[in-house]
C-alpha cells in the first residue's frame, strides 16, 4: 500500500511540473508581456533595461527555470495592478472562495445524495420522477442565469436576502469568515445556492444510478434475506457500495467548483479569487493569472491524490495492496 501511495505521489509531482510549464508558456509566451509593461513612448534604452530586469531577454527555458525556482520559494512576483506580492493578494482572497465552495459542495452532497438514493430506491414513484426532471433542469440551466434569477426573486422582488458582498465577517485564526455571523450567512446563502445547483443535479443522478445498480446486487439480496430492515440495508450496504463513485465526484467537483466560482462570484460581487481572476484577465495582470492557474492546478492534483487515498480506505481490495 505504501508503494502505491509513493507511486501516486511521484505521478502527481510530474503532472504538477508539466502543468507549471504549460501555464508558464501559455500565459507568458502567448501575447507579449513587454507591451503591457512598457509604454510605446519610452526610450529604447529604458526599454532594454526593463526587458533585462524582468529577464525577458533570456531564452524561454531559462526564464522558465527562473520562474520555477521563484515559485518554489512561494514568490509569484508582484501584481501589475495592485502592486503587492501576488501570493499575499491570492491568500487574502482565498478564504472567501473556500467558504463559498465548501458551502456549495457540502450543501449539494447533503441534499443530492439522499434525494438520489431515494430516486434509485423507488425509481417509478412520483417524487423520484420529479427529482429526475429537476436534475435535468439543473444540468441545463447556465449557472450565471440562475444567479440573476435568484437575485431578481430574493433580493429585488421579495427583498429577503442581500444581492452581493460578504456582509459582516468575524475573524478566526486571523482570517475573516462570513458564516459565523447571521448577516454573513444571509449573504452566503444565495451565492452558495447558485453555485451548488449544478453539483446537486450531478450528485443526485450519480447516487440514483449507483443505488439502482446496488439494489439488484447479491449483497442487498442477502442482506434482506438475513432479515435486516430496509433502512439498515440502505445505510449499511447500499451507501457503502455507492461511496466510491460519490467520493470521486465529490473530490473532483470540489475542484471544478473552484473554477465555477468565477461565475458566481462575478454575479454576487463575492470578493474571492474567482472575481480576482476575471478582473486580472480584463486588466491583463499576468502574474495573478499565473498564480491563480498554478493554485487551481495544485488543488486539482492534490485532490486527485487524496481521492485515490480515500479509495484505499473505502475499498478493502485496494487496502490489501492487490489489484490496480
Amino acid at each position: 500500500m505504501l508503494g502505491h501511495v509513493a507511486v501516486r505521489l511521484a505521478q502527481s509531482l510530474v503532472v504538477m511540473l508539466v502543468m507549471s510549464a504549460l501555464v508558464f508558456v501559455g500565459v507568458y509566451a502567448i501575447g507579449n508581456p513587454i507591451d503591457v509593461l512598457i509604454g510605446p513612448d519610452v526610450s529604447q534604452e529604458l526599454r532594454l533595461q526593463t526587458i533585462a530586469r524582468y529577464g525577458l531577454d533570456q531564452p524561454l527555458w531559462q526564464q522558465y527555470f527562473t520562474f520555477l525556482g521563484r515559485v518554489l520559494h512561494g514568490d509569484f512576483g508582484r501584481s501589475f495592478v495592485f502592486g503587492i506580492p501576488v501570493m499575499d493578494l491570492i491568500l487574502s482572497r482565498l478564504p472567501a472562495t473556500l467558504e463559498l465552495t465548501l458551502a456549495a459542495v457540502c450543501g449539494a452532497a447533503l441534499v443530492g445524495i439522499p434525494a438520489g438514493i431515494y430516486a434509485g430506491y423507488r425509481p417509478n414513484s412520483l417524487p423520484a420522477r420529479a427529482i429526475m426532471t429537476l436534475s435535468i433542469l439543473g444540468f441545463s440551466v447556465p449557472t450565471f442565469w440562475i444567479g440573476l434569477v435568484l437575485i431578481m426573486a430574493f433580493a429585488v422582488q421579495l427583498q429577503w436576502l442581500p444581492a452581493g458582498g460578504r456582509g459582516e465577517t468575524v475573524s478566526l485564526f486571523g482570517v475573516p469568515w462570513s458564516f459565523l455571523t447571521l448577516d454573513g450567512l444571509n449573504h452566503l446563502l444565495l451565492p452558495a445556492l447558485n453555485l451548488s445547483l449544478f453539483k446537486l443535479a450531478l450528485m443526485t443522478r450519480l447516487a440514483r444510478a449507483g443505488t439502482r445498480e446496488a439494489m439488484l446486487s447479491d449483497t442487498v439480496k442477502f442482506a434482506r434475506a438475513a432479515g435486516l430492515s430496509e433502512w439498515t440495508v440502505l445505510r449499511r450496504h447500499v451507501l457503502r457500495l455507492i461511496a466510491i463513485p460519490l467520493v470521486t465526484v465529490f473530490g473532483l467537483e470540489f475542484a471544478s467548483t473552484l473554477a465555477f466560482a468565477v461565475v458566481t462570484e462575478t454575479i454576487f460581487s463575492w470578493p474571492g479569487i474567482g472575481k480576482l481572476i476575471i478582473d486580472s484577465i480584463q486588466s491583463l495582470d499576468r502574474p495573478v493569472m499565473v498564480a491563480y492557474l498554478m493554485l487551481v492546478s495544485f488543488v486539482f492534483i492534490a485532490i486527485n491524490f487524496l481521492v485515490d487515498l480515500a479509495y484505499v480506505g473505502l475499498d478493502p481490495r485496494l487496502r490489501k495492496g492487490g489489484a490496480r
Partner: protein
Amino acid sequence: MKDASPAARFWAEFCESKVAVVALAVVVLMIGIAVLAPLVAPQDPYDLANLALSDARRAPGFVGEGGYTHWLGTDAQGRDLLSAILYGLRISLEMGLVAGAFAFALGVTLGIGAAYIGGRWEAFIMRVIDLQLAFPAILLALVLSALLGQGKLQLIAALAAAQYAYFARAAHGAASAERGKDYVEAVLSTPLPGWRVVWRHIFPNCLPPLIVVATVQVANAIALEATLSFLGVGLPVTEPSLGMLIANGFQYMLSGRYWISFYPGIALIILIVAINLVGDRIRDQVNPRLKR
C-alpha cells in the same frame, strides 16, 4: 420492421419517447427561426434607423414608435427584445455548432487515431487527454479566450480546445473495442490503406456513442459561450449572442427591469434543455445495457 434500414429502425425507436420527439421538434423549430431571423423578426434590431431611445427599457407589451407591439419589452437602446433574441439565437447556435464540429473533428481524429496506431503514441495521447479532462472546461475556455483575445474565431478555437477531449475519450473507447473485432482484422489483412480502414470501417461503427457526446457537447458549447460572453471575455460587442443580451440586462435587473435579462435566458434554457433531452434519448437507445 425487420427489413427496415437501421436508420429507419432507429427513428421508429426514437419516436417511442414523446418527450424526445417534442424536444427534437423544439430544436428544429429554434434552428429554423434562428436561420430565418431576418424574415421572422418583427424588427431589425441592429438597424439604428429603427431604434428610438424613447422606447428604451419598456415593459413587455409596450407599443412603440414604429407601431410594433414589443411583446417581450425593449432593451436599453430601445430594441425590440424578441427580435434581439432571434438574432442572438442565431449567433449562439452558430458558435455552438461550429465549435462542436471542430471539437468533433479534432477529438475523433485523435481518439480513433490513437486506438488505431496503439503502442506508446496511444498511451501518450490518451494520458494528455485524461489530464485535460481533469480540468473543468470553463476554466480552460476562460483562460484561452483571455489569451487569444476577443473575436469569433478566437472563441471558436477556445471552445473547441476546451471540448475536444470529451470526443477523443469517447472515440478512443469505441474504436479500441472495434479494433479487436474480427471484421477489422479481416479488413486489415486486405491491401487497403490504413486511412481507408479507419474512415470506412472503424469510424462508422463508432458513431452511435459519438452522436450522444456531440449533442451534449453542442449544448455545453452554447452554454459555455453564453457564460464567457456574460463574463465579458467571449464575443466582441458587435456579435450580440444570447449571453451578451443577458449581460447587457444585468445592470437593469436591480431596478426591477427583469425582462432584458430574463427572456434571453429563457430562450437559452429552452434550447439547451431540448438538446439535452434529445441527447438523453439517444443515449438510452445506444446503451446496450438497457436493450430489451
